[in-house]
């Protein structure tokens, strides 16, 4: 009994092999159609996963999107409230690894003049801390001459030339600095002089204080909302708010782009599947003769159908394995072309794409079920 089953099984695979090898041209055609489908599926799936992540990173060219500012309690004119820089230590280390940038800032009004000129220009000096973890311990040591980024409008107003020195003066001290030109941003930076945090703190006589903290948080709108919630817990006594101009606009745009991508890819995948199926079915109908012959020599309908399904599954596997591999390679190249960084191949995409290709192949063999009910005699007589 087992022997018979073994022989049967051997025969089954032998027939499948013959079916596959019978017509080289047809085999190539089927593999081509299935492979193309597999390649597109794999490439698009891989690209879609990667593109979403890249886009959220791309959005950060807009700059910071969250602000932590002192909560004001009845300010009476005078100097605005400030935050203690040591608050920065509360930010967990792993945030920095997630690519979150944290910049403490301190603004003050100072007068600036050039050496050898008595024209004094009142302007805003911004102290900018580095995005490092050890801020707040000690600002950079006081240097006699620092470098400062001078906004374009300040440079124009003061008629600064390269290599000229600029002196910033407040009530408490004077700070000479080297003029470092910047390019126009269209933002408030154009009207400011940006110096290192420590220098600004010295100028304002506010050691260890920051006016506000700017955070640049990459991620989906949902991730940013979560980040704001955890920041509010970290800084219960400060005012944490999103820069709505960017968070809201971004959320809108992200959803749109995501929609376009997902919809386009879904449509392409579904139609590609139909397309491959139509091509496969076209080939499958040609098998009428084979089916007639098998039935004539005593093949049961179920076994005949199983034979053809096995053939289709094998073809799907072959086409899928080759196509999906090509597709993933393609998506790496595409990712590089679009975002300048190669898309990381996701291993999960490979089995999914192969599985989908097999599914399409098996589905497209289904019209054969109808063939299984044909009468062999009429086929051999040449009737349709």
């Amino acid at each position, binding site marked *: 009994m087992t022997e018979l089953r073994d022989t049967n099984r051997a025969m089954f695979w032998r027939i499948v092999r013959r079916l596959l090898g019978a017509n080289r041209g*047809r085999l190539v*055609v*089927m593999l*081509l*159609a299935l492979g*193309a*489908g597999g390649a597109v599926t794999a490439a698009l799936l891989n*690209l879609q996963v990667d593109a979403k992540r890249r*886009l959220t990173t*791309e959005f950060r*060219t*807009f*700059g910071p999107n969250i602000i932590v*500012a002192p909560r*004001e309690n*009845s300010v009476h004119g005078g100097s*605005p409230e400030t935050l203690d820089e040591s608050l920065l230590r509360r930010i967990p280390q792993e945030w920095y690894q997630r690519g979150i940038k944290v910049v403490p800032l301190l603004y*003050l*009004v100072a007068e600036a003049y050039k050496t050898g000129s008595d024209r004094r*220009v*009142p*302007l*805003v000096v911004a102290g900018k801390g580095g995005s490092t973890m050890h801020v707040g311990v000690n600002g950079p040591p006081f240097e006699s001459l620092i470098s400062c980024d001078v906004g374009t409008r300040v440079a124009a*107003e003061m008629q600064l030339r390269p290599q000229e020195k600029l002196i910033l003066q407040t009530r408490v001290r004077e700070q000479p600095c080297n003029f470092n030109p910047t390019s*126009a*941003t*269209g*933002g408030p930076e154009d*009207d400011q002089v940006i110096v290192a945090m420590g220098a600004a703190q010295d100028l304002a006589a506010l050691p260890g204080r920051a*006016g506000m903290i700017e955070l640049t948080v990459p991620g989906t709108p949902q991730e940013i909302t979560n980040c704001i919630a955890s920041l509010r817990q970290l800084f219960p006594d400060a005012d944490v*708010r999103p820069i*709505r*101009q*960017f968070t*809201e*606009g*971004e959320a*809108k*745009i992200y959803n749109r*782009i995501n929609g*376009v*991508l997902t*919809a*386009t*890819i879904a*449509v*392409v995948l579904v*139609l*590609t599947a139909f*397309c491959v199926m*139509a*091509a496969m*079915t*076209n*080939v499958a*109908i*040609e098998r009428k003769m084979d089916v007639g012959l098998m039935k004539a020599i005593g093949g049961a309908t179920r076994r005949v159908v199983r034979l053809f399904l096995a053939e289709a599954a094998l073809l799907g596997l072959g086409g899928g394995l080759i196509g999906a591999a090509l597709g993933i390679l393609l998506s790496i190249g*595409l990712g590089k072309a*679009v*975002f300048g960084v190669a898309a990381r191949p996701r291993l999960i995409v490979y089995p999914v794409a192969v599985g989908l290709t097999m599914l399409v192949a098996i589905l497209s063999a289904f019209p054969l079920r109808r063939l299984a009910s044909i009468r062999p005699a009429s086929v051999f007589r040449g009737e349709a």
Partner: protein
Amino acid sequence: MFFRLVGDSFGRRPRHKLLTGAALALGMGVATAALSVALDVGDRLAREFRSLGANLVVTPKADSLPLEIGGVDYRPVNAGAYLPEADLPKLKTIFWHNNIMGFAPILEVPVQSWTPASQTAFAPKINNETTLIGTWARHAVAVPDGGTFLTGAEKTNPWWQVDGQWFAEGNLECVVGQNLARKSQLRAGDIVNVSPKENSSPAVALEVTGILSTGGVEDEAIVAPLSVAQRLAGKPGEYRKLYVSALTKPEDAFAKRDTKTFTPAEYDRWFCTPYISSIAFQIQQELPGTEVRVIRRVAEGEGQILSRVQMLLWLVTLAAMLAAALAVGASSAASVIERQVEIGLMKALGAGSGAVGFLLAAEQLLLAFVGGGVGYALGIVLARWLGEKIFGAAPEPTLLVFLVVLGLAAVVTLLGSAIPLRRASRIEPAPILRGE
């Protein structure tokens, strides 16, 4: 006879033709839908990006440096320069006036604000030093060539939310930033008095029509009609800063070049492309004495993301077209392979290889045009549906896509059948007819 043969082939085996045609139609449907979306998405997304607000800022050239910290300008009102409001309609006369989506002039005045209740002896004295921002909420600008253009902060700062209503132009009304409203216990319908800090203009009582939340410095300020701010500042018909929101084309390497190095032809090309720099230049020409700066933070990110998304979609489209082409090619190859017996018979009856090839190619082409046409219709329906779902507006069907799709269908079917056709033309009729 030729047409009879072609017609016969279609009539005799309808199911075969139907399947090949279906593969073609689906493939071309994919191509059409993807192409239509990709062609349209740039414009649509550019419009979406305007939800980030203004991308150009106009300031007087002779202005002194603003001393603004946390939204409070420490500069005296008399310092600096102002611009005439009467010039603003000229913005809609520049070459790219249709790309100007909105603009709003700003005039800020440092003020004291108090509520009538705080003047009584018993109520807590709520007296704030704050900034009054004068602007347009929804202002109808009379365009020089007739008609009006509705613009204001609603267009340039779409993320501003008003709980209640915007103030009406010309009335003594205002909206109050949410933080200031909380501090002063102001609600919609209340009256707030403001008087300028630095000159002797009389105080003005404004009715609060809504509470403004922006997430920015405006949360601490009062936003009122421009005319109110002009009255308080003693600067009738003037403003200090203008925000412009313009629809632009992402800057490429060409747009980043210095305009001074352009040849006249290049200069014309630059001028006639809606690059942000050329729009800025045109505004500067139209409004003398101004400095127009690009808000890099908004404009640069926008251009970068826009070009990336567009490229991504083009690649998806290309991949879709490639897959459709391969599947269609495979389908038409299959339909030729299966007709070896027929080809053998034709040759046995005396048809030359050329005639057979021509006949089959004509059949395939006919199929390609029918399938391509059906696929185009299918794809357009699909693209419309997608467009409405995602952007709320359907892409316009273009002749270009139709021609591309038909051409693609013809090329793909011919290529797909080329190899089997060549083999078919070399077929020896005898072995085929014998069934070998």
